[in-house]
């Protein structure tokens, strides 16, 4: 009969063997010069701070063939500025959803027609909504950008666990800090 210590050694050996064979699951990513590994597909990406929309515009410029759904509760995005940033306007569907922005996002994700969804919102979202968005985003394999109007609209830390990537814009030098990156 084997002793407990020898079993533990065997188990440890097996674990290390499995780790060496298994490759870590990595999401597919879109290239993006502002983040080292790019932007992952099939997950939520939150960007906070002044210059967040500019960052999204830069990403869309670097990935010109993606279809985009742009959802806002109060429509303030300026299409002429988007065109000025060399983004093809006909690739972008704008939705002014008012209070139904999460419903609209859900419809867009379920349609399977878009590779990128950008949602700008002015009210804080709860964990349930974030989790639902995360599940639908994963299923649709879409990169979903969350742009809260200000820090108060950002999901509270306890509700933000479904967000895979969180970027913060530096107010002084407009650089990007990666606060969280999973998967």
């Amino acid at each position, binding site marked *: 009969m084997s002793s407990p210590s020898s079993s533990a050694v065997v188990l440890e050996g097996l674990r290390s063997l499995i780790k060496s064979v298994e490759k870590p699951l990595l999401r597919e990513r879109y290239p993006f010069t502002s983040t080292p590994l790019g932007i992952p597909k099939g997950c939520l990406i939150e960007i906070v*701070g*002044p*210059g*967040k*929309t*500019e960052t999204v*515009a830069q990403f869309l410029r670097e990935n010109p063939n993606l*279809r985009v759904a742009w959802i806002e509760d109060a*429509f*303030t*995005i*300026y*299409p*002429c*500025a*988007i*065109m*000025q*940033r*060399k983004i*093809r*306007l*006909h*690739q*972008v*569907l*704008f*939705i*002014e*959803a*008012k209070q*139904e922005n999460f*419903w*609209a996002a859900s*419809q*867009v994700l379920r*349609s*399977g*027609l878009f590779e990128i969804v950008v949602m700008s919102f002015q009210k804080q979202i709860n964990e349930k909504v974030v989790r639902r968005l995360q599940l639908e985003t994963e299923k649709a394999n879409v990169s979903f950008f969350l742009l809260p109007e200000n820090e108060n609209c950002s999901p509270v830390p306890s509700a933000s666990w479904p967000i895979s990537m969180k970027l913060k*814009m*530096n*107010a*002084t030098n*407009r650089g990007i800090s990666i606060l969280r990156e999973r998967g």
Partner: protein
Amino acid sequence: MEMNMRVLCVLIEGGKCLHEIAECCYRWTPQIALREGEAIFLEVGSCQRIYNEETLFLKIKALLKRFGVRGRVGIGDDPALSLCYARLGEPRGVPLRELPLQALYDVASPFKKDKALFKETEQLVAVLQKLGLRNLEEFLKLSPSSLSSRFSDLGIELHRRLKGSRTSLLWPSYIPPEKIEEKMNLDDFENCQTLEPLLFLIKNLVTRSMARLAGRSERVTRFELELELEKHSFVKTARRHWSFSLPLPQGSVSSLLPLIHERLQTDFQRQPLDSCVRHMKLSIVETVPGQYGQKNFFNKREEEQEAWNSLMARLCQKLGKEHTFVASPTEGYRPESGWKKSWPESHQVEKTKDEALHATLNGIELPFPQRPLRLLKAPVPLFKVQNTLIQSSENESKRWEIHNWDGPERLQGEWWSGADALKRDYFRVGTETGEELWIFRIPDSDKLFLHGYFD
């Protein structure tokens, strides 16, 4: 009718949904005839290069299942034989020796139940049986010359038809009704008062309607749903009615059902049903031509277009048509009038002026400063107190400490508007918090307005 034809007969049990199924069959052949209350005949000889008989059998089977009816199929060189094969349950046909003399009733009048002809045929069959004949093969062995002396003209005609010679049998083409309506009685269903069971039943109506539309090569742009409730003394509205107007034509069940689900859910929350539903009706009010082509295995364009149409319909129904759009640039002096909303007809937008413009702009730096990504719908008045900008409105008050002030960029034009002519000096203002504001001042005045953000 040409004699080198192939006729497929669908014998439906109880004659249920005969007209509806006949309409659906238009997608396979335009030559359809009915035997009222009993069977549908399809001339399929001309479409054998597109659908082989086995494929048609399977499609018909699926169609019958969709309508919830049972039936038998037979295929032969003429309507009478195909009807006989269907009655016997032998789709591919049997030798004539296996067809009894009673099959002559169908040979005499395959398309309708003619009482006088039936009686005459009955007499003929009785005589043939007395002569010891048992099946159609033996009947065919009789010489034509003996037929004329013993039997009436009917006997000669039937003999000729079975022999395969040209006959004067007229093909009574089926003409579908002008309007598509699907009804259902719910007397056998209990507790149909909530959304989920109702949707399950409405799906059947939608499925049938779409199948009939596909037969006509049409897509729906407007349809109506009506529910009739059980009448009790407390029921205020015994009839509930919804009209659906689609921004883009739809042709599939999966695109219509979510619309109906969404609308009924909202409506039932506001005003639940007072009693169980006893009767429901779906009417297709307006249609447009819409080709249902064969699926392309190499791309999913048709499916994507259907998904796009469905998404647009749902968004428009909930949010309004003016809130879902693509933007395109227009000529205008004012920044706020530099673009317009366009309706996206297709997810595959063809190269438009925008694409051409984009191609032209690629690599070229435009000779005017960058525009902010956020533009307010209406400029908001600002007050400048020393180095602070203050926005004070009914809803909120904001303050920014000025860090840098770049400009001005003079925008002017529309002199023909008189006092409303455009004359603004725009500045790009950086604040201590890192935000960048797009502000304009009316020249020759101290009025400042916040127009946008460089976010």
